[in-house]
């Protein structure tokens, strides 16, 4: 609670938090409140500039960019969340196991983790995406999640091993608490803030990975995401014809979302991680 109070006083955290909330509200409520067309519906001609009818103009097929932006943000956030949950879940599980168990199990788990960290994630992402034929937003989230967990695993393991030597864990061990209970009761709760921060980072990474894949042409089928919007603007050259309304909004939304998430994370980092506190 003490920490929460400090968190609320952190400008960085609060700025990030409010922007994320606004983006989230836009993505969740926008499609029902602010538009009555679908993202694939034609409402005008080729690259109409912004007007009363289409707030952000139309794209190369005459579809409403403002509507696409709301749906696109929703998909991107959704994919990011799925990826974040999957990666955090796998990472925390493996990290805690490796940090708590020692000896062969730890060596094996960390060996696998370290090898996977060395291979650039984009490579595995591309290969998996090409292999999975019908990509829904959910499959994309899962694909991104299963390639992103090693960092979380490594960080969580380091935390767990340092927690293992702490007083309350030692006491619990002496009093014969079982391993599973120990992990769930004595170790995980002490890492909540840490895990939450890892999740935020994975969420950010997931949104970025989606955009990267989609821009390369490996995006979700039959939905728009911020990445697909940008992919189209590459494909149909809206940048080169100067139709700024077709690509600037997605660019800005992507940047703002990742920036505010990272801002939140930086705010938390300063508070939960006392060694990073600036004392000068």
């Amino acid at each position, binding site marked *: 609670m*003490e920490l929460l109070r*400090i968190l609320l*006083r952190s400008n960085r955290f609060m700025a990030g938090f409010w922007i994320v909330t606004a983006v989230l509200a836009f993505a969740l409520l926008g499609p029902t409140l602010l538009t009555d067309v679908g993202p694939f519906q034609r409402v005008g001609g080729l690259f109409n500039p912004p007007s009363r009818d289409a707030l952000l103009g139309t794209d190369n097929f005459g579809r409403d960019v403002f509507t696409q932006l709301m749906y696109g943000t929703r998909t991107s956030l959704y994919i990011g969340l799925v990826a974040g949950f999957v990666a955090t879940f796998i990472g925390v599980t493996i990290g805690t196991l490796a940090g708590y168990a020692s000896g062969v199990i730890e060596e094996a788990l960390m060996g696998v983790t370290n090898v996977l960290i060395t291979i650039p994630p984009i490579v595995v992402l591309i290969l998996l995406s090409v292999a999975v034929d019908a990509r829904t937003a959910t499959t994309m989230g899962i694909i991104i999640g299963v390639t992103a967990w090693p960092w979380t695993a490594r960080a969580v393991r380091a935390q767990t091993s340092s927690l293992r*030597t702490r*007083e309350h864990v*030692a006491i619990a061990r002496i009093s014969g608490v079982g391993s599973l209970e120990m992990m769930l009761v004595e170790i995980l709760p002490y890492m909540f803030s840490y895990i939450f921060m890892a999740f935020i980072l994975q969420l950010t990474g997931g949104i970025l990975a989606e955009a990267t894949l989609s821009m390369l042409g490996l995006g979700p089928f039959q939905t728009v995401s911020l990445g697909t919007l940008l992919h189209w603007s590459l494909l149909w050259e809206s940048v080169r014809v100067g139709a700024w309304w077709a690509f600037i909004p997605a660019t800005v939304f992507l940047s703002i979302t990742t920036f505010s998430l990272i801002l939140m994370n930086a705010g938390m980092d300063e*508070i939960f991680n006392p060694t990073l*506190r600036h*004392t*000068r």
Partner: protein
Amino acid sequence: MPNVVEVEGLEAYYRTPAGDDIKAVDGVSLAVREGEVLGIAGESGCGKTTLAQVLGLTVQKPLYVRSGKVLLEGRNALALDRETMRREVRGKTISTVPQGAMNSLNPTLRVRNLVIDVMRDHNPRIRRREAVERARERLDLLGLPPRVLEAYPHQLSGGMKQRVITVVSTLLDPVLLIVDEPTSALDVTSQKVAIKLLVDLLAKRIIRSIVFITHELPLLRHVADRIAIMYAGRLVEVGAMEDIVFRPQHPYAEGLVGSVLVPEPGMKERTVTGIPGRPPDMRRPPAGCRFAPRCPKRFDLCDRDPRPFGIDGREVWCWLHRDQPNAERP
């Protein structure tokens, strides 16, 4: 003889990120006399290290001196400018062997280079060769192998690190050396060696005074001339070593002397088991006698701040001794 360093009515607080003050040292007056070994003892968290930072003139954020006087050889030390403080005081007049000396050496710096840096930053005219030569002679004089100069910190054992740091800290022959928990990370043999080195430094007149900080009061029996006992940011009893160790007057000092330290492996700072209860939260210390919540002898006067009472040359902050005269400040 003047006091080397002295604080009066010192309040030294830590400012937390939430904006609170941790009142680590809260109204302490204490003088370090030239030629003495002053022991400071108390449970961990009572403010010993904080007091050492002020005495060593090495206060830095988030610690700040809220009020009180700090006198260096009789002059106001808080008025010294940064550069004079660095060049003329730190390492040269007052030097420190910090708590946790195990991590106090830069892992990527050979000892010889630290030696060179320390010497040249106080006297730019000295040559690198001379600096190393001086260090070698000093090590020789104190019976340490000169080859440690070529070592990186991780190549030294814990006990050796402690000794190397002691030597580096005293290279410039400071008047006062403050040693903070020099033995708590060491095994018994290394503890003895570390203490012998301090005694040697005094005997060879390389340094004149020592402030020896520890949470293990019995340790002071072999080294200290005087002892100050702290509790929750305040002094509770100050006096000659024999008086404090063999005839403590303050209930907390009695507990500290009488308590048995139970060594628990893996715990760096042990807790005093002879006194039940825990020290107070230093953001909101209790009014009146701070020891009252744990004191077996508390009575109705104890909800007021005790004055220092004088008992044959020592000071005791406890209402039990209210029939004694007020202590005379030295």
